[in-house]
């Protein structure tokens, strides 16, 4: 194991290149990617008439009008007038499940939100990230996201920037720290989430990823659909503006 790891390190394999290779390999052997299966699952959930109101999600407005999915997810998070909130992909799906389908908040299954997020995000594959800071609350969320990103807190004095800016490309554990705010100018993490992670067979949105970042370092995580997790995404997405999205992502 150590020998293998050491070999891998000495070869300095770019994790993104390695993921591409694994993707090809899986496609050749299985004929279909796990990420594609999740997109299909999400599609079924999206068009199925469900919930107390027996409705589909076809009327859901992701910011470009009811039912317009193409290009919607690369423009999130954004401010929505109907809820008077800045929402991300996850929270907007939840909003529509509540408003259109009549689900109670506690009835909403996380796995369904993730699958629907995969389907909606897939409709923006190849498009550039283009979030904006137009409304005052969008600006306020961006600023909150920036402050959270640079904040040091908890018993381990953790903070996102402490590793993802200061030690960019360095390694604690197996993988080097990802460039999440495009410091190096080669694109940012927001371009490839939601993502399927083949090393542990996980389907995650950026909300899951952020929460795991905190959790791995022993810091309490912000709750799903909360202002903090949305603010961090708006901050990161703004720094990814113009970068081409690969959706859903396929990662180690």
């Amino acid at each position, binding site marked *: 194991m150590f020998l293998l790891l050491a070999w891998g*390190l000495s070869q300095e394999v770019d994790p993104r290149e390695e993921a591409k290779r694994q993707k090809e390999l899986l496609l050749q052997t299985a004929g279909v990617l796990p990420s594609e299966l999740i997109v299909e699952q999400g599609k079924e959930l999206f068009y199925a008439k469900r919930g107390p109101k027996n409705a589909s999600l076809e009327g859901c407005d992701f910011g470009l009008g009811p039912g317009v999915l193409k290009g919607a997810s690369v423009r999130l998070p954004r401010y929505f007038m109907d809820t008077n909130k800045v929402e991300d992909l996850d929270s907007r799906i939840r909003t529509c499940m509540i408003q259109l389908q009549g689900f109670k908040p506690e009835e909403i299954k996380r796995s369904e939100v993730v699958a629907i997020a995969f389907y909606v995000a897939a409709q923006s594959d190849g498009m550039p990230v283009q979030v904006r800071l137009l409304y005052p609350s969008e600006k306020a969320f961006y600023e909150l996201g920036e402050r959270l990103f640079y*904040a040091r807190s908890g018993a381990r*004095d953790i903070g996102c920037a402490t590793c993802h800016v200061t*030690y960019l490309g360095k390694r*604690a554990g197996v993988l080097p720290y990802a460039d999440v705010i495009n410091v190096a100018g080669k694109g940012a993490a927001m371009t490839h989430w939601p993502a399927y992670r083949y090393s542990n067979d996980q389907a995650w949105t950026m909300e899951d990823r952020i929460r795991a970042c905190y959790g791995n370092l022993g*810091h*309490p995580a912000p709750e799903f659909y909360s202002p903090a997790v949305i603010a961090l995404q708006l901050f990161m997405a703004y720094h990814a503006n113009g970068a081409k999205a690969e959706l859903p992502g396929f990662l180690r």
Partner: protein
Amino acid sequence: MRSIWLLLLLALGLALAQRYFSEQDLERIRASGPKYAEALVGQRPDQALCSIHKNRLPADLLPKFIEEQRALIQYPKDGKLMGDWKKGGAIFNNMAKANCFSCHFGSPLNLGGDVGPSLEKYGLNRGQSEAIQRYTYEVIYNAWAYFPCTVMYRFGVQGLLTPEEIADVVAYLLDPNSDFNTKPAAGRR
């Protein structure tokens, strides 16, 4: 009268020191979960200072900051800065405990990361003088006393390790008989 002014100044100082998040921010952070909010709203003044300056303190703030961080360091009751290297090894190589190897290269048991400097053969290269014992102990107890705002946990200050446990880790790094110094480091850097 003078004491009232001093109190006012102190209160002002604290208010300024802790002002990193705006009131609006704090409201949104509180709506993001009670435990999360507790950690961020309860940010300590030194954490807030590092946050405000994005981990690079301006030169004029450094002397006071370092002095305050130094004042937080406490030592084992028996005064020994080198404890039991075997216990220290268990702490160094435990991911849930000190997790030193994830950032530092040099452990014979675990492949090290490259976030922190390599510690390979730490004791063989530096000897076991009182000065190096003290330096090693103090950096582990409070890294911010030497490297303000660094990523390394402040193991002693934050109560992650006791002074005695830190002395054990010092021994693991310095003792010439420690596995850390007698066995080859795992993997290649």
